[in-house]
């Protein structure tokens, strides 16, 4: 019986074998990239809110402290979204007639609620606690990014488990002095080392604060039940 395939096709078959293996790997790589892409994680996607509240204006230009509105950030798992009353503290005098603020005024007068779109949305089996992060010197900016530059709120990081663990494995480089937790622009070099008077670099300050705050071992911080219950 004559051969169906000519000997010259051998190299084509070899190329096909290798090629299909590469394709499978490539497919998984594509899925991986897609899964962590900003499209899926909704990173950097501003959303339309009932009131176009600008953190860039309130934080960046006016310099209002985060905790003026997010009152429970130091004592609760939930940082707190300000009640309409808090907005009206200023806006009963400033921009009182503004059309943009109509929903806030309506809410305050009539008691209607304002339904804000949630930006930082963790899965329901994740239990994140703001108070412990703030108490241990994690800056707001570390997770929420430069909100002072966001006209509309957006998610600065992927919020994937990989991203959480990245810090939980070695929290040192994200630690800052308690007084600088809410600062948007602080860098380690702004703090000076009391031992020699030199400005800190990120690593040495992190090491010092890690000791000072008595932060748990990475073994403890990466235990499943630290976040999942």
């Amino acid at each position, binding site marked *: 019986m004559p051969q169906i395939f000519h000997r010259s096709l051998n190299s084509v078959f070899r190329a096909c074998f290798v090629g299909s293996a590469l394709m499978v790997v490539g497919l998984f790589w594509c899925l991986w990239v897609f*899964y962590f892409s900003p*499209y*899926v*994680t*909704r990173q950097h996607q501003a*959303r339309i809110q009932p009131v176009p509240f600008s953190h860039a204006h309130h934080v960046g230009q006016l310099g209002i402290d985060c905790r003026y509105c997010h009152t*429970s950030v*130091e*004592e*609760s*798992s*939930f940082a*707190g*979204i*300000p*009640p*309409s*009353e808090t907005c009206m503290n200023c806006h009963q005098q400033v921009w009182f007639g503004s059309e943009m603020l109509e929903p806030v005024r309506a*809410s*305050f007068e009539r*008691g*209607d*609620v*304002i*339904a*804000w*779109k*949630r930006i930082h*949305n963790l*899965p*329901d*089996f994740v*239990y994140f*606690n703001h*108070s*412990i992060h703030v*108490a*241990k010197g994690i800056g707001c900016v570390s997770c929420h990014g430069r909100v002072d530059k966001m006209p509309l709120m957006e998610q600065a990081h992927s919020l994937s488990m990989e991203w959480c663990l990245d810090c939980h494995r070695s929290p040192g480089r994200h630690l800052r002095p308690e007084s600088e937790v809410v600062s948007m622009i602080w860098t380690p070099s702004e703090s000076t080392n009391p031992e020699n008077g030199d400005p800190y670099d990120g690593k040495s300050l992190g090491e010092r604060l890690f000791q000072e705050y*008595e932060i*748990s*071992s990475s*073994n*403890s911080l990466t*235990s*499943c*039940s*630290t976040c*999942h*219950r």
Partner: protein
Amino acid sequence: MRSPIRSLRERLPSSAGNMFWRAPEDIGKSINSTQGNDAEFTSGIETWEEGISRRRFLELAGAGLALSGASGCSPRPAPSEEIIPYVKMPEEIIPGRPQFYATAHVHQEMALGILVESHEGRPTKIEGNPDHPASLGGTDIFAQAAILDLYDPDRSKTVLHHGQISTWGAVHSSLRSALQAELELEGAAGKGLCLLVGEIRSPTLHAQLRKLKQRFPMMRIYQHVVGNRENVKRGAELAFGKMLETYHDLTEATLVVSFGDDFLCESPTRCRESQTFMAARRDAIDQDGSSMSRLYVIEQMLSCTGAKADHRIALPNTQIDSFARMVAKELGMPAPDATVSLPALSRTAKVIAKDLLRCRGRSVVKAGPDQSASVHALTQAMNAYLENTNRTVFHMSPFWDGRLKLDSNLGSLVNEIRNGSVETMIIIGTNPGYSAPADIDFIAALKSQGTRRSDLLCFHMGAYFDETAELCDWHLPQSHFLESWSDAIAFDGTATITQPLIEPLYDSRSDHELITFLTGFQEEMSRETVRHHWREWWESHELSGTFDEFWDRSVQTGTVDGTRRTTVNVEVIADWWRSLDGARPSEEGVVISFALDPTIGDGAFANNAWLQELPKPVTRITWDAPALLSPRLAERLGLTVEVGSKGGDHGEAVVDCVELSYRGRAMVVPAWIAPGHADNSVTLWLGHGRTSAGRVGNGSGFNAYQLRRSEAPWTDQGLIVRKVDRQHIVASVQMQNRMNESRPIRTAAINSFGLDSGVAKTQSQNSELLTVLQPEELLSLKSDRPLEGSSPTLYPEYDYGPPNHRWGMAIDLTSCIGCQACVIACQAENNIPVVGKSEVIRGREMHWIRVDRYFSSSLDDPQTHFQPVPCMQCENAPCELVCPVHATVHSSDGLNDMVYNRCVGTRYCSNNCPFKVRRFNFFEYSDYKTESRRLGRNPDVTVRTRGVMEKCTYCVQRIREGVINAKVGHRDIKDGEILTACQQACPTRAIQFGDLNNHESVVVRWKNSSRNYSLLEELDVRPRTTYLAELRNPNPELTGGRDDGHR
């Protein structure tokens, strides 16, 4: 395998296998012989949930495919989630942090102070109020489960008129016209008006009823309460010649004799009495054991209290009176002659009397509310004779104003209705349509020719559209106690102003609001009514400060200062005993006794799925109510029982049915052979067989009210029992989750324990007395097994050094009374679903903590042991090794974490768990659909879906919260700051949890005790949950010198 009782009995003395057996069928089987058919899961996983046909399955599968194309593929987080902040935030609320409010739960006419956890306005969990005298921090199953009733989707939601939706406005106009007509009857206002009420526990409501009665002087108020305390009251009247309230203080009591009183689990003061009784016992053991109290229980059905007794005498309820008279005579006090002669018990009576005289002034004699008034009179007189008054027994004047007469004779109400002398009837919070005795045909009275009577206008107020509501013209939804203001009083008169936690979920009103309208045709919020009542009280008591201060303090603390009654001194009247009934009861037939169901009471909790699925203490039956009878009676009748023996079917018990004929009525019910039940008697549980309870409660068990008669509501002679050729499947968990442990319980008698080591004998593992832990063994446990576990291991050791924590738990089996408050508390805290009877039969119940019950010694008079079993959080956890996806892993503080979102449902972990504490979601048991159920979930715990394994986590959400709070506050965690849900609920404080690194903690002290042991020690899995051996204090005179803790 179907085994006749006789062969079981024969197996008993020679049994070299399980000395601790869970069911009669278990007797004599050796541990290893069961292994072959002891697979945990049923072999046929294809067993579908009831009601899913092949066609339905294909429909669902098809729909599932279609939907998965539409939405299932997106890994993106849901874009639509919203955050809705307050408009004006209440000052005291910190979003994300729960709040606790004091209020009270009322059961059996007495208040239990509670603290209710509220998450942003949603009550989710109930805890005991440590400052309340009835709670002392503990709770019971009914208080724990009350939260589920609040969110019950079957609750009545709107006003109904002849079954059609109506409004409160229409109710009010109908009431107004009916009552206006009554008022116009000069001098006879209320002649045609009848009120039928349930439990009255609120002073405000009582005062309101008095006011209503003034407005309608001819009105009759009837009261229908199944578990009433009539006999208690009549007994006090017989002994003292007047109405009195009595309570007992067990703190100093060294001897308790209970005539049919299940005071540890069933009485309204159970939380307080079980706690004080067990705390005193623990203190005594900690000292040298010589002052440990002793408990004698004389009862028919084996109860929790009977299970904890040092000596239990099983007697039919009809003979308990005679035995009490025998004891009284032996005490040397004047007492009537026994009506039944009990020669076999004369020595026992002598010994008990001798013991009572020895403990003069430090003893308590108790009687159960279902015992006759004569027994109550006898116990009151005995307590007085033994000089217990004002030492352990306290009397108070009656709580309620005697001017308001509540007639508890339902029969005369039915006669009135039949005569036509009732034109308007208002029924509030009681359900005679279901629970009226069989000889009072309440249903027929309200009907003429099969329909509602047209000459009677009937209103019904209740939380459910129940059997009674169906008979009435109007049905008015009643608010849950967490939705309305009211007040209630505890056993010693301490009042609690009960505050609501949430606005009424539906269009309901409280009973206060209805009575206010009846009195003045005006609507008033119940808060105003209650405030008004207490303002009057406050003014009459001339307290310091303003009323608002008084009100705020009372509401906040959960008790009203100054309401505790002062005790009164009373004397037993001369010749009290002559008035006691001396009639000799007939001895024909078998004794029939009725008892409130241990979990669903008189039927009021029938629609509470937590309570229905909670295994009844002692019998371990769920979702059912067979007739309980003794092994000897079962033997005579030729009854058998067959327990499913294939893997996963251990919940199935096929039992024979019997026909009960009693005073012209007959009923066929399944029979349950209950070891320890008094011979020649049958106990029936009330509360089952409902037809309009709701989706959960309908159809469970059999309605025992159909045999109950008004003249003998609790017990009577003359029952005829006959075996019929029918079988019934009972779901009992007693054979489920068996561990291959030959000595799960270690028990000893206090007088042989550790005090005199010369008494101790070394017992080999196979000897007959292997059940009994000898002092040497107890002591050796400690040296063998230090906290760390020192046996060599190939696995790398974990590092738990400070500042890390090392959580551990110890459970004291001496203190555990088997009440299972821990089980319901765990269910509420951890969002644990219920599965239903058919799934329980397949061994798929989901409770994370179970309270195993073991029997030992004889079949007819067994010793009973309780053992709560949560996850042991093993150090060398077998489950962790076999999980292919790392869904169960060791945490840095020693917990076996369960990661639901990783679990793929292989169930290897559960197969490999020697303690059988893992639970698998075979179906989507969690209710994701019902809106109201979602409100009640604990937001700190994931709701698990189908295909996921779950288990006890030591309430890891509470641990993490406690640790975070301590760290944020820059302080160390105090011992007792973090409580697991089971620990917090436990009325006897039998569960201790804490950090083993903290050497000051109670749990470390317990674990260092010589009583400490762990289950399945030979496996070296190093459980973190260990047990303290059970000690009893039997009377050497009754054990015949055998100091082994057995009778």
